[in-house]
């Protein structure tokens, strides 16, 4: 929607509007561009001169072109699969009310926080050659060998990508969908259109902005996928991010790692620029004021079937691996017991590595709340700016805001070390740096969640309110906030989840002794012994529970519509 305003009152407004971009730009400037540019300079010009010899390999063989192609290909396929799989779920959550809905929605977001190693363990326990499903199938059909061969195939990590990202589509598209007026479809149906026709010519076009926004997040997420491909895909597959990791950490070829990181950034920048163009084209403003079209109870048997199938599907796709994790945390060698949980409380050798579960929870929550807060503030400013921005401005700034999500975690982590080393920015070993790193990866989620909602608010509604004598604040409270609240909550949930799961850059951020839950899980998984494994699973379950509790807390904290 074009919102070029005229009149001199708007002149000042638009100047004010430009200031909105300052906080996010300042933040990115300090914590993103400055470290990134520092590390790039250091890598390419270690002695002050451009060193190119180490880069010959980049073009000498077709290997790196192959890696880039594979990265794009798997990200596109993962995104497509996730959208197809999750769209029906988004519909169910947007349209129907049923018992346990909120719980289910929160459960669906939990995969987002699970460390890759843990997810891998869950999938192996479920689908591996001696996993539960294969064992059952073998016994049922009296087979000698496992039926399902997913291990170290493309399918295994595609499945994991769907498992991780299902919730992105569910929440962002679902949230948007629930505000679409239902009666549009109904009138078309009355005019004789079939359900399929209604979906493709009315619903889908209306949903496009949200689907595109969510798909972009999923794509970028999978594009920079690291652990999932490395662990579930096996060593034969390498994304650009995996290659950066190899080059930087094990071959010490920083120029090569940086060149790859630049390629990664360039590619996503281009992609997001294209997306930004598309997004503006498909943005729709909904003229109906009814921002909460009421959810309906399930009525017909068909509806009941549809909802049931979707919930079952979610239970299989998302619930089964989580359940497998839970079972592994309570099924000990001597039958079901809470030995592993009790073990978490015990510091057998008084180790400094040991972290009491409650301390790990506190550390994780502390980081996550600060990160969420920063991400919300930055995301809000960015989205507010982008909504009213002129075309050219948005075309450059929108992709810019997304870059942290698509930047190699290792490169950025190293950038912190060399750039943030002197006062007033001597932050590299500060307790706040992990939270800042989390927020940087998280705030693109807030933007992507806010923008479609914000763009959908019709200006004439605001004008009407103003005409009727409502103060700007009142207009905002009554019209904008109710619509934005939900989108903001979605953004908050993702920001929180990203931080709880220690996503990306943070693994490479230097930190003092503040072990979080994922770090505690890694610690248990780094020594042999069945107790260690069991305790890692128990800690994973605590992580899931804490995260779910955090989601509920966020929902409570977001004031309801208009309630100030």
């Amino acid at each position, binding site marked *: 929607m074009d919102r070029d305003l005229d009149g001199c009152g708007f002149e000042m407004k638009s100047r004010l509007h430009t200031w909105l971009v300052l906080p996010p730009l300042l933040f990115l400037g300090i914590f993103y561009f400055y470290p990134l540019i520092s590390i790039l300079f250091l890598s390419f010009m270690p002695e002050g001169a451009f060193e190119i010899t180490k880069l010959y390999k980049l073009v000498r063989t077709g290997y790196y072109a192959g890696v880039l192609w594979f990265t794009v290909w798997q990200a596109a396929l993962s995104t497509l699969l996730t959208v197809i799989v999750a769209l029906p779920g988004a519909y169910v959550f947007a349209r129907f009310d049923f018992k346990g809905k909120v719980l289910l929605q929160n459960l669906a977001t939990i995969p987002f926080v699970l460390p890759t190693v843990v997810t891998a363990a869950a999938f192996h326990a479920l689908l591996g*050659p001696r996993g539960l499903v294969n064992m059952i199938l073998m016994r049922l059909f009296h087979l000698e060998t496992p039926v399902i061969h997913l291990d170290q195939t493309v399918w295994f990590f595609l499945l994991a990508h769907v498992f991780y990202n299902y919730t992105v589509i569910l929440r962002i598209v679902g949230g948007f969908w629930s505000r679409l007026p239902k009666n549009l479809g109904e009138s078309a149906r009355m005019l004789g259109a079939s359900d399929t026709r209604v979906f493709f010519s009315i619903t889908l076009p209306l949903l496009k902005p949200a689907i595109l926004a969510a798909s972009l997040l999923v794509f970028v997420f999978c594009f920079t996928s690291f652990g999932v491909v490395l662990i579930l895909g096996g060593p034969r597959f390498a994304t650009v991010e995996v290659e950066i990791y190899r080059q930087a950490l094990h071959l010490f070829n920083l120029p090569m790692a940086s060149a790859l990181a630049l390629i990664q950034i360039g590619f996503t920048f281009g992609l997001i620029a294209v997306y930004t163009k598309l997004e503006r084209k498909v943005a729709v403003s909904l003229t109906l004021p009814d921002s909460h079209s009421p959810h309906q109870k399930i009525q017909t048997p068909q509806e009941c079937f549809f909802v049931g199938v979707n919930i079952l599907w979610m239970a299989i796709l998302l619930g089964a691996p989580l359940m497998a994790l839970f079972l592994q945390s309570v099924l000990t060698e001597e039958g079901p017991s809470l030995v592993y949980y009790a073990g978490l409380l015990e510091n057998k050798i008084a180790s400094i590595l040991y972290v009491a579960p409650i301390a790990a929870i506190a550390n994780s929550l502390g980081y996550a709340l600060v990160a969420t807060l920063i991400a919300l503030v930055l995301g809000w400013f960015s989205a507010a700016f982008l909504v009213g921005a002129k075309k050219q401005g948005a075309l450059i700034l929108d992709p810019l805001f997304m870059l942290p999500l698509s930047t190699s975690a290792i490169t950025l982590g190293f950038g912190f070390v060399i750039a943030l080393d002197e006062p007033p920015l001597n932050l590299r070993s500060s307790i706040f740096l992990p939270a800042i790193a989390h927020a940087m990866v998280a705030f693109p989620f807030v933007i992507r969640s806010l923008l479609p909602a914000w763009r959908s608010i019709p200006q004439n509604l605001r004008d009407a309110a103003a005409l009727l004598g409502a103060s700007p604040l009142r207009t905002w409270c009554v019209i904008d906030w109710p619509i934005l609240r939900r989108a903001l909550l979605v953004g908050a949930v993702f920001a929180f989840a990203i931080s709880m799961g220690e996503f990306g850059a943070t693994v490479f951020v230097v930190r003092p002794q503040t072990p979080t839950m994922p770090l505690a899980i890694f610690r248990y998984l780094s020594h042999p012994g069945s107790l260690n494994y069991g305790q890692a699973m128990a800690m994973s379950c605590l992580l899931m529970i804490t995260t779910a509790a955090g989601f509920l807390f966020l929902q409570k904290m977001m004031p309801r519509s208009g309630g100030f």
Partner: protein
Amino acid sequence: MCNPRTLVLCILFFLSAGIAEAKEKIPFVTLMTHDSFAVSQALLDDFEKQHGAEIKILKSGDAGAALNQAILSKKNPLADVFFGVDNTFMSRALSAGIFEPYESPFLRDLPNALKLDPSNRLLPVDYGDVCLNYDKSWFSKKGLAPPRGLDDLIMPPYKGLTIVQNPATSSPGLAFLITTVGKYGASGYVEFWKKLRANDVYVTAGWSEAYYGKFVRAKGGTRPIVVSYASSPAAEVYYSEKKLADTPTAGILDSGSAFRQIEFVGILKNTAKRELAKKLIDFMLSPAFQKEIPLHMWVFPANPETPLPDVFLKYAQKAKAPILLLPDTIENGREKWIETWTDVVLR
């Protein structure tokens, strides 16, 4: 956002975090290390009592990531002392020039075989052997003799039984690759890996995925041979649920089938706290610290006089004649070996 509760909570959080940051008053020395470094809190407190200075520990990822960050920050070091360079990365660390020499009086207690840096910029603290581990009960049930060394892995009876880690992403994986280079020579190792690939070797990204994913002792795992550490069988006993009379696994420690990983500590150049840094190094080589190494990090202390805990005496073994390539040889060969390995085994 407009909720007063949210605001109050956030302000409280920032305040408390601020107070936590502000309270440091006693002098401290900073130790930068990898994620698996551990000792007891009491030991750290002892240092504080002896020297009136606290030890601050900074962790930054695995050994490779930590060393990289130390090298990158050499002009303005993050810490005073760095622990966790091993002999596979030693040359790299030394040629980056980030350490300064220190002749600790405790050096005379350490065996010469571990002192790989004649200029004493890096001092050995502990060592451990990377070797193949196998599941005892799997082999006894199958009626198959466990492999005795690397040669057996490429024999038909052991087809599809072995798990290794990718040397490009894993430290034990790299150590095992170096073992094969040391055993079969700079050209023979290629032949070995070709045959091992033909014998259906399974490659994982890291140690955890191998040991807790594919190894037969893991839930859903199927393979009975995995690259791990010589101390792993002891850890299996120590961290077992039921009391075990014997180790469920064993290491293959025959001549030339293991690699000795030695971990070093050094003072970072440009530190402002040289005296404290020296004290910290002395402390790490002292009997009190050395004694804690086995149970906390599952490797052997560098000082051979250190009393070992029971579980180590009984179950942890050392390799006979482990592979010990010179750090320079490793540094010069590493990239080529990894690339060749990738070509032979993965592509």
